[in-house]
């Protein structure tokens, strides 16, 4: 499955574009996606510990704009947003 990961906040440092693309196995979960992003950080940013911590503490948002848990099964190609720790106002 093709996942377009939309980047927000500090995760925008992961790419010059505002998204990353991942190819996941069928029935992957958000936890699997999180691990793929961590692998991406290892490969592209020499395991940058700040980036990895950011991924570990982020939530994710479905194409339907719901916050989804780590066990959420991804069943189709879709856009998913990474929601790093927040701090507006």
């Amino acid at each position, binding site marked *: 499955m093709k996942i377009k990961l939309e980047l927000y*906040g*500090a995760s925008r440092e992961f790419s010059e574009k505002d998204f990353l693309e991942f190819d996941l196995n069928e029935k992957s979960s958000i936890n699997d996606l999180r691990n793929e992003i961590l692998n991406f950080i290892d490969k592209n940013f020499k395991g940058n510990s700040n980036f990895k911590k950011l991924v570990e503490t982020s939530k994710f948002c479905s194409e339907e*704009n719901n916050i989804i848990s780590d066990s959420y099964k991804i069943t189709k190609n879709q856009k998913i947003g990474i929601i*790093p*720790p927040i701090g*507006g106002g």
Partner: protein
Amino acid sequence: MIHAKIIDVSKEKISLTKAQKFITSNKCGASIYFVGTVRDQNDNKKVTGITYDSHDVLVIKSFEEIYKEAETKFKFENTTVFIEHIKGYAALGETSIIIAVTCKHRAQAYEFSRYIIEEIKKKTPIWKKEHYENEDSKWLKGSPLIDKNQLK
């Protein structure tokens, strides 16, 4: 009644006049305006501006949910709330957020307004990148989003 919006500063301006027009009501005797602005210092660094990023759909959803929660919690009658937050760059002293609240009585208006800003800090997906005098910049750490009700 609520008005909730993200203002993209590259296209329009955030405005107190708009807030005032929206919340004016003869049924209420108290209005509170909370205005968040960019200040010049954070963590002993001289700040020159902040870039705000947001997940627009989730932000609006979050503002509306916070308003509903406040209505349920306080049970005040005839409340009107106006919330706008910017996205994009704001220089020193510029406004990042306006929360305008009108209620029957002043104690209610203070309480309602305070509740809304505190919940926004915990629940609304908005991020800040601070810009400093030495031309350096940094995304602020923030706190993990609290959104237990929406977990699926």
